[in-house]
């Protein structure tokens, strides 16, 4: 089957964003494919190249980067949410005249239409919130 994921959970609080990444990996391990992972609201922080987590806690960024780089999973941050949370890719940082890009290159910033299309192209849309 084809899956799409909607991640609204913050990587900074609770376990749910990490669960979403583990779920994505398990989806692939069971022989399914992933059309897209769309990050909305607080979930866009998952794409931060800047966040630093305590050494005794799991890395929240690496599982997503691995999905993108090893399995070509498309990771999209909602642009309206991303800008509010200071999540700018290189193009947006330049356009908005900000000092640095904050989004990891494994992620792209795009519009809500990408969520609609991801949902319609998939057999399953699984939401991770809270």
């Amino acid at each position, binding site marked *: 089957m084809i899956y799409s994921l909607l991640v609204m959970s913050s990587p900074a609080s*609770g*376990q*749910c964003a990490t669960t979403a990444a583990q779920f994505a990996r*398990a989806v692939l391990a069971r022989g399914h494919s992933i059309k897209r992972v769309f990050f909305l609201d607080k979930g866009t922080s998952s794409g931060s190249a800047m966040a630093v987590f305590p050494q005794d806690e799991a890395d929240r960024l690496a599982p997503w980067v691995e999905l993108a780089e090893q399995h070509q999973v498309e990771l999209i941050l909602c642009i309206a949410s991303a800008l509010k949370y200071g999540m700018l890719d290189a193009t947006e940082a330049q356009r908005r005249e900000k000092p640095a890009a904050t989004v990891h290159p494994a992620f792209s910033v795009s519009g809500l239409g990408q969520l609609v299309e991801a949902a319609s192209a998939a057999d399953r849309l699984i*939401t*991770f919130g*809270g």
Partner: protein
Amino acid sequence: MNVILHTLNASPASSACSDCLRLLASGDALLLLGDGVYAALAGSADRARLDASGAAVYVLDTDAAAAGVLSRVDGVTIIDIDGFVALTEQCSRQLAWY
């Protein structure tokens, strides 16, 4: 199978939890994750409502372990992340409560 998978990631004190319990129907599947795992605590009022709903109730093992309730959820099915994916294979729709 046209079964609804409810995923509850909210404490029993939340309106998300009470709304979920109100809509939970016999034959549905419910996966408790995050703070939702507390609803599975044996002997609690919410657990009684879950048992009375006729829904199949599951808890995510890592979240139940993190909450320290793994030994106190007798009677619900403990699943890992692979089991979570299996549930989404069986259920064509998901309702996410959080």
